[in-house]
């Protein structure tokens, strides 16, 4: 089936054989947007977090069919030149280690900030798993935004 997806402000037509394909794999395999990560596939880790209509969504568990027609923002579309305050704070605070979880973390933060929260409050709602254990630097960096 063919679906219309709006990702990072652009409309994309995607062909999927299975309408229940999670948005995660559509983004990664069909659209080549590999910044959104696969970690667990069972809604536990948060590595796959994207912004859908301004809200954080776990793309490993969001059918592409239900994502059609909504405004999807991935890490690639969060800002031009890493200019989003969370990205800037994350670079200044040297947060990422392996970095694999950070797209999901930053998208979660960005959604919470969009809702008007201060960085130090937004970070308290970050439940994403970071196996590298960068939580302390996440907390410190979020105080600067």
């Amino acid at each position, binding site marked *: 089936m063919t679906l219309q997806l709006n990702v990072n402000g652009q409309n994309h037509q995607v062909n999927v*054989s299975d309408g229940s394909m999670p948005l995660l794999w559509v983004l990664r395999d069909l659209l080549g947007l590999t910044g959104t990560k696969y*970690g667990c596939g069972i809604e536990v880790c948060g590595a796959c977090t994207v912004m859908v209509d301004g809200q954080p969504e776990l793309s490993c568990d969001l059918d592409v069919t239900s994502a059609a027609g909504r405004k999807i923002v991935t*890490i690639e579309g969060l800002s031009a030149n890493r200019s989003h305050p969370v990205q800037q704070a994350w670079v200044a605070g040297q947060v*990422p280690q392996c970095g694999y979880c950070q797209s999901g973390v930053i998208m979660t933060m960005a959604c919470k900030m969009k809702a008007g929260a201060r960085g130090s409050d937004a970070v308290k709602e970050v439940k994403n798993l970071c196996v590298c254990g960068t*939580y302390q630097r996440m907390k410190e960096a979020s105080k600067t935004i």
Partner: protein
Amino acid sequence: MTNTQEKKSSSRRSFLSAAASGLTLTFLIPDFTRIDEALGASGTQVNAWLNVAIDETITLTVGSSEMGQGSFTGLAQVVAEELMVDFSRVRTVQGSPSMTSPVPVGASINTVGSGVIRGNFWKMRDAGAIAREMLVKAAMNQRADQVRTNFTVANGVVTHTPTRSTLSYGSLAAAAALLPPPATAPLVPDNEFRIIGKTVPRQDIPSKVDGSAKYGLDVQVPGMVYAVVKHCPTFGGTMSTKPSTPSGMLAVVPLSVFAGTGRGTEVTGAVNAIAVVGPNTWDVWQASRRLTVRWNLPANAASLNDAEFLRQANALAVSAPAYVPGGANPPGTLYTVEGAAAATDSALSSSAKIVDATYFLPYVSHACMEVLNCTVSYSPAVKCEIWAPTQSAKSVLQLAMAMTGLLENQIVVHTMYLGGGLGRKAEVDFVSQAIQVSIAVGKPVKLMWPREEDFARDQYRPMGLVHAKAGLDSSGNITGWSYRNISPSILGQRGAVLGPKGDSQGSEASNALPYNFGSRNVEWVSHPSPIPVGFWRSVGASINTFAVECFMDELAAAANQDPYQFRRTKLTDPRWIAVLDAAAQLGNWTSPLPAGRTRGIAIGAAFNSIVAQVVEISNVTTTSITINRVSLAIDPYIHVNPGQIEAQMQGGIVHGLNAALYGKQTFVNGAAQAKNFNRSRMIRLNEMPQIAVQIVANPTLSDRTRVIGGAGELGVPTFAPALANAYFKKTGKRQRSLPFFPNATMGEL
């Protein structure tokens, strides 16, 4: 591009690539001394090289892998210091492996053992200094003034002081490339360091906040298909009949264990998995889930159970046949690592007090955030290109040569960013599978292990059972120390024939401890469990430091002494004492705590660094412990980037914390039970303790006879015992078995 003229005249230290682009200094890691062999070989690539280009750019190509540990940045700092340029001018890029190397195959580019900085510090300094002196020499020639003291260098510009004229590195690079490299070059004195020992930003971080960093799983190649792996759920099982290809899929490819990649139950040639191949990850994964594969289960499946492993370990704790030189020494053999049993037994028999305890640690999964994966594009008899998140690029190259019969120059290995390695990505089993699939389907393929396979088919941190016994005299001195660790052999599963001291990985951090133990006897027994085991961040130290430091705490209690002071009075190495003191001070050991809080302390060494931790806890329930604060002191002898050491200590503590509280893989009839994060809990941000890190300074930095310590794995070993010791203080109970909460689960977000 090697200038053959230069080969004969060059020193044994380095050789040149005289290229129009400027000065390229190639240096060998980790062994300078056999350069002649490398020069005689035809390969053009060695493990690292430094290029000063005519356009003023400076590029350091590094063969090791970047998995967040920041060693690329650390190496660039060292080179920039000696080249006397701003750190920001040295760009680090990922190199590719080569068989041309002065070291044994597979040993050179592995990113393991916290080794990138500690293995390369002096080589990088020499390389930077030699390059700098060659550039200065070019300036001396150009100014026709051979008095070195008439030239100074700053920020990549050589100044001829008598004429005050300046020459940039870029303008000198082409001429410098034609000069013979000096045998040695003076290093920047410690007190003039501008970059070594300073926190500088990591070069890979910007790409890790905008989704542009390419990890192994992100590789996309034109014409690529996707493969998802499904193993026999039971270790040692093999495919019975090949299933037919599901509709919409391209192929089902049986995967066999390639020589050298199988561990324990997985024997060479056994078909232990299949790959379903098709158009995208999701469709293939779904087809793989639906596919019924008939497996032949191994005859010993029923004995591959936790209870049986424990029974075997307990039996071996009581009696095990001793190693016989030249004998068969099958699993279950006892190796003497240090001392002799008879002497220690007799010291113990005359002690005023005897304390003994048994500790148990389970198998633990790696659970890297990025699952195992590999992309391969194979063209028969022509080329094999591999993109892998690997800690062992050279092993990948070697494997590809063996599997394809291609020559080295027909194989290209791209080391991608790793979404965590933790030791698991030093293995190449997943790479061998991707090569098999690409050969079978004749297309480029990206192969992925779903998270469930990543957990169920890990090469786990070995289980370990430790029995410790010690004697105390009436003044609280230790009169004898008897220690036996029973655990499966990591090296044995890799084909090593163990010598009289057994598996060095298994006994790591249990011997040569600088405590005054009186008579000591340290033993290691190979446990017969064939469940695949491997290198897990901090390896043997994760088992032994737990047992040693919990037991030291038990001895302190038996001697009725403060655990910090007890250790301090037993330590014989001033560096250990300084580290212990620093951690105790950072953790306010002697000040009273708020009600409900307690502290525990532990110290240990691994990879030539010494670390001590003070862990502060509160609120102990049957399912949780609040960890409030961790204070860590480390002495790595030399440190390059303190901010990065701090980050690694934080990460190592979290790794140790996850394992201590929750980490455990369970086996029922040969099948792993925890297959995703829901059954392998880890902490989230709200559970993060406050961590303080202090680097203990050493008086003389640049003594090149001293051994430099690592950082990457060092936060791990001392956390669990410090936690267990705090728990004892809080509850009066000893936690001798890990994890604290084996049945914990992790809920959905």
